[in-house]
Every structure is written in C-alpha cells, then in structure tokens.
C-alpha cells in the first residue's frame, strides 16, 4: 500500500484525495493478484519479469533435468543390452565347458571296439556349435543382434558361422561426454577364422567345426589332433569368451553406477529447481493476509471519502 506522501500540501481537493485512494487501491490489487497467482500456481516465477535471472536459470535447470532423465533412460537401455550379453555369454560358457570335457575325455581307446563313441561325440559337439551360433545371434529390443557391432540390424552370424556384422560395439551416452560400450562384437568374443569358435566354412574351419570334423574322421591322427591342437585352441577360445564376459560385467557395473549418478543428479536438479521456482507458501500466505488487510483498510477509507464533507453538517 502506498502511503500518502507527507510532503503533499495540507489543503487537498476531493479529487486529489480520491486520486490518491484510487492509486492505493490499484497498487493493493496488483500486489494481491501477484500473490494469488503465486499461491494458486505454486510457482514464484510466472513470467520472466518476475525474476529474469531465475527464469533463465529455470530453463537451464529444466533442460538439464530433461537431459539427465534421458541419461537414466540411456543407462537403463545399456544395462538391458549388457544383461542380455552376459546371460548369453554365460550360456556359451556352460556349453563350452561341456565341449571341453568331451574333448578332454577323448582317447585313442574310443577308436577300437564295437562301441565307437566318436560319431556320437561329434554329434554332441556339432549341436554345441549350433547352440553357440544361436547364442551369438542373441538379440535385444526390436531384434537388434547385440554382437553384430553397428553393421547389421538383423543378425551377427549367418548359418555358416560367418560374421556378418561390422563396426564396433554400440555405446550409450550416460553422462555429458561419457559413452559406455553396451556390448562387444562377435569377433572380439568368439574370435575369427581357424582360431575362432564359429566358422564352418570348409578350408577355414573354426575350432568347434574342426573338432567335429576330427571326431568324424576318427583316425588315430585326427583323434590325437583333438587331444592336442584342438584342445589348445578350445582352451584359448574359452579364455577369450571368459575375458569378454568379464569386460561386459565390468561395463555393466560402470553403467549401473552412472545410472545411480544420473538419478542422484536428477534429484539434486529437482531440489535446485524447487528452490528457484517454488513459492514459499508460508510467507506467501502471510503476505497475502497482510495485503488483504491493507486492501480492506484502503476500501474502508475510500468508502468514507464520499460521505465526509461540510455539506453533511450544514
């Protein structure tokens, strides 16, 4: 409420008094409207001029909040990829363990006698090969093959065990300027060519296909090859797969941490946003009551204006 200026001359005409009153009432109404808007919206800043710096800050905080929410979404998506990858690789490991025990159990004895077990062992390794090929084609949301790098939207390996992906593994942005790989490419996990696990191309058989062929050939030489070079290659391949699983595991841990960080950043941003944009209800309501009192007083004074002049007493 604007107080009546003490420097005004003592003699006041009715219209100068009423002008003053109208101004007081107008000022009170403006203050009331502003407080009522703050209380009804809950926002201290309803237009930029309420607090220009705060308004710009508000936009910045809102944008950061939206961005960090996306980082959480990105991290959650990456976690999904890494979980799918880890679970595929642990299945691969258990299949490879079976193959390893088969290969280690092969001996020249199995060549002789009626119970030639080699064909059935070959059969088992062959089915392990197709199982692992299937696992290498594991997909995540919308059928994206997780081990195909960025080069293929449908599969990582074709039916002959040839890698049809390309590029490096995709990444997710989990913090400003920070990308984490959410997978690995097929060759990084399964190797390639004759030391790789999956190739079934004749002339360049992969480790598993070579074992199958050697078991099927069933000669002394081929069986000793199984026990020798094939086993060495198999163990190397198993090591590579397990190293890949470890990498995916540590990426998964990292991405979980980033997810937590993004979520903490989100709540910090919300608190900051709250302190910029939220009305302090207690003080706003107190101020509103003060303004209402002052408005009522001004109204009362105005209502007295029209009645009090000398004419009343003449």
């Amino acid at each position, binding site marked *: 409420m604007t107080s009546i200026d003490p420097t005004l001359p003592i003699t006041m005409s009715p219209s100068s008094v009423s002008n003053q009153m109208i101004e007081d009432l107008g000022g009170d109404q403006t203050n009331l409207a502003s407080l009522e808007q703050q209380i009804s919206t809950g926002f201290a800043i309803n237009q930029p001029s309420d607090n220009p710096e705060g308004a*710009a800050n508000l*936009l910045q905080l809102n944008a950061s909040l939206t961005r960090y929410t996306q980082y959480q979404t990105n991290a959650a998506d990456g976690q999904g990829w890494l979980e799918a990858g880890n679970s595929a690789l642990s299945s691969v490991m258990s299949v490879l363990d079976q193959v390893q025990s088969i290969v280690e159990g092969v001996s020249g004895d199995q060549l002789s006698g009626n119970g030639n077990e080699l064909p059935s062992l070959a059969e088992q390794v062959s089915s392990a090969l197709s199982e692992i090929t299937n696992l290498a084609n594991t997909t995540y949301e919308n059928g994206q093959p997780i081990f195909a790098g960025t080069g293929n*939207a449908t599969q990582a390996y074709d039916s002959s065990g040839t890698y049809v992906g390309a590029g490096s593994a995709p990444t997710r942005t989990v913090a400003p300027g920070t990308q984490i790989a959410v997978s690995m490419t097929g060759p990084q996990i399964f190797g390639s060519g004759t030391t790789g696990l999956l190739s079934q191309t004749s002339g360049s058989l992969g480790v598993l296909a070579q074992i199958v062929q050697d078991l099927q050939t069933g000669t002394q030489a081929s069986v000793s090859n199984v026990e020798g070079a094939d086993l060495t290659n198999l163990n190397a391949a198993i090591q590579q797969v397990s190293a890949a699983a470890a990498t995916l595991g540590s990426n998964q841990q990292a991405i979980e941490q980033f997810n937590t960080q993004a979520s903490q950043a989100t*709540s910090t941003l919300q608190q900051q946003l709250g302190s910029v944009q939220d009305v302090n209800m207690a003080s706003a309501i107190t101020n509103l009551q003060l303004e209402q009192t002052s408005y009522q007083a001004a109204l009362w004074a105005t209502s007295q204006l029209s009645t009090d002049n000398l004419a009343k007493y003449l």
Partner: protein
Amino acid sequence: MDGALSIAESAINANQTEIAVTSENVANAQTPGYAEETANLAALPGGTAGIGSGVEVANISQAQNLMLQMNNLQAQGALSNLNSLQQVLSEIQNIFPIGQSSSSSSNSTTTNTGLAGQLANFWNAWDSVAQDPSGSAPRTEVINQAQGIATTLQESSTQLDQLSANGVTQLQDSVSQINSLLTEVGQLNSQILQTEGAAGNPDAIKDQLQGILGQLAQQAGVNVQYGSNNTATVTLGGVSLVQNANVANVTLVDTGGTYSLQANSPGPVSLGVSSGTVAGLLAGVNQYIPQYQNELNGVANSLITTVNNQLAAGYTASGAAGGPLFDGTGAANIGIVAAVAANPSLLAAASTTGAAAANDGSNAQTMAEFASSQTGADSQYQGLIQSIGSITENVNTQVSAQTAVANQAQSALQSATGVNLDAELTNLMNFQSNYQASAKLLTVIDATMQSLIQAVS
C-alpha cells in the same frame, strides 16, 4: 437615503455574484483542467461626504500555478510513455512462455512447455534413435519434435509481427488524436483572442485548454508555453506545432520499417519524441520488437546450423552422405525438409559409411549431446528470456515510480488550483450571511423611508 439604498443594492449584487462563482466552483469540482475561481470585490469610491458608493466585483480571477501545471504535464507524459512501453514489453514477454516442471514428484516427469522444453525433448529424441537406429518410431519422433519446434518458432515470429502491426495501428490512432487535439488548441487559442478582443473573460476557455493540453501531453509529451495574450504555444521536440491559431499537422512516417513523427510546418520536419504514449509505442515498434525478432532468428538459425552441420557429418544406414533436416534461415521461414519428413530413414544417424553404417546410431548420439551445449540454441533462448525479463522488470519498476510521481504532481496541482469543497461551502456561508445582512439593510432603509413618509403626510 438614496445613497444608502444603492449601496445596499450593490452589496446584494456583489453577494449574488460571489454565490454564483461558488456555484460554478462546486459544479466544476471534478472537471478536468478546471481552476478555482474567485470573485474579487472592491469598494466603490464616490458618494456623499466621502462615504463611498458601495461594493463592486472588480474581476473574477482564476487560481493558477504555471510551474505545477508544467510539472504535471511532464509527469503525465512520462507516465504515458512508460505505460505504453510496459504494455508492448509484457506482450512480447507473453509470446515466450517459460514453462514449469512439477519438481515435487520424485520421478522426473517434466512438463516442459515453450521452446526451451521442446528443444530439450528434441535432443533427447536423438538418443532414442541411437538406441534403435534401424527402428522407424524413434526417427518419426525426431521429425515430430523438429516439426513442433519449427511451428513454435514460426508462430512466435508471426506474433511478434502482429504485435508490431498492432503498435503501428495504435501509433496511427495516436497521431490522428494528436492532430485533432492540436486543432482544438488552435481553435481555443483563437477563441481566447476573440474573447479578449471583446474585453470578455476567457477563463472558461482556458480551463478547457488545460484539459486538452493534458491529453496532448499524455499522447506526445508536448511542451507548452503561455503567451502574454493567454494563448498556448505547443512545441514538440523543439518544433512549434501550435502558435496562436496556426496549427501544424503531424504525420507518421515509415522509413524502411522504422517509424517516426513528422510535422508539416509547412515543409516536413522530423520530430524527436521522448515522452507520451507515442514515445513508448515508437520504442516498442522501432527497437524492442525488432530486437526480439532478431534474437529469435538467432535461436532458429543456430538450431538449423547445428543440426544440419551434424547431419552433414553423418551417413544414412545405406552409407549415403547425410542431408539437412531443417530448411530456412530464421524463425519466420524455418521448416522441415519435405523429403526427410516423408522418409525419416534419410536422417543420418550413422557416423561411418560402409558396412558399419547399417545399424549405427553414433551420429544421433553426438547430436543428442548438443543439449548440453553452452553456446547453442538452448542457451541463446535462455539469454532471450533473461533479456526480455530484465527489460520488462526494469520498466515495471519505472512505471511504479513514475505513477507515484505523476499522482503527486496531479495532487499538487489540484491542491493549488483545484476546488476544495469545504472551503467553498465555508465561503458560501459567509456570502449567505452577508446577503442576509444586505437584505436586512434594504428593509431597514425601507422602514426608515416609510416612517419619514408617514411623518410628512
């Protein structure tokens, strides 16, 4: 006895005039521009034995305070200037909503309105493309968000244009009002001259002139000077617009989108206007609206350049070089390239060509990170909001201060020259008892005459 009778008569006449002046004052207590009038009495000389011959109304004078009048005109002009500027600025401000988010909810569901929120969502949409580079839904989302941004920018730009057009219409209205007010001042000036020529009292015309000059000051912040002949000389920016009965008309001139006032006195002279409604509107139309149109164009241009450059650095899934998403150069003409809108797979989400591009979203990922850019469209828009906010806040403060100043100037003028009803009524009581006394005087003289007549009959 004759002398006493005519003295009493003059007293009654003078009292009647005083009561009439009081009536006039009470009747005009609320009339804008009216100045309190006083009947000034003087004793009439002559008569027998130096008694004198009664009382007369020497003249009727008007309360005047030129300094307060000028102060008031200036204060009202300055207030009108700020008021009209405030109106333009708050309308500009309304074009740019700041949006709010519900921070109370623990999960982050931001409901961003306005361009800032749209930009944030647009950048995020690119991360969705990166998560599923071969999917069509995320790409369509990018197109939709881009379309929304383009629409908002275009609408804001159109609204600024409309605001400017409305300002010009208001200016034209003001100018035609100014011209009719100037004409009235000229007419009143010549009436004053005529009345004075006929030895009449031009006070009522001067009151009217006061009211008109007040309106002129509010419209254009004119300067007023009174001549010795009581006429008002009106100047604006040092150029004389009314002198005696001569009036120069004012026109609004458009010089390549910049507006100014010109007087034809008789040749065209440009007028510097720094006060009144017109000054505020001119500042809005010439300065502030173009300024924010420019800033908005800057935001649009920055967005177009950033997005299109990043796309040009990327490749489509088939390995083709990336093309632009936005066309246009500013807020008014920003749009989406039709071919991309029709076929979102043309968006260059991959950062490599060749086989590795088939399911690559790393260029989209890079695009999404522009959300955190400190120099891009987002921060430019924040700058725009802060700028319009500060200017509006500043003018709001000035308006409150100037409103107080103008009210005070008005009150001061009213106190000095306005009508105080209590004073008028007190005077009225005096005049009434005076009148009664004079009337009593008449009856006493009459009675004396009667007794004289009876004595001699």
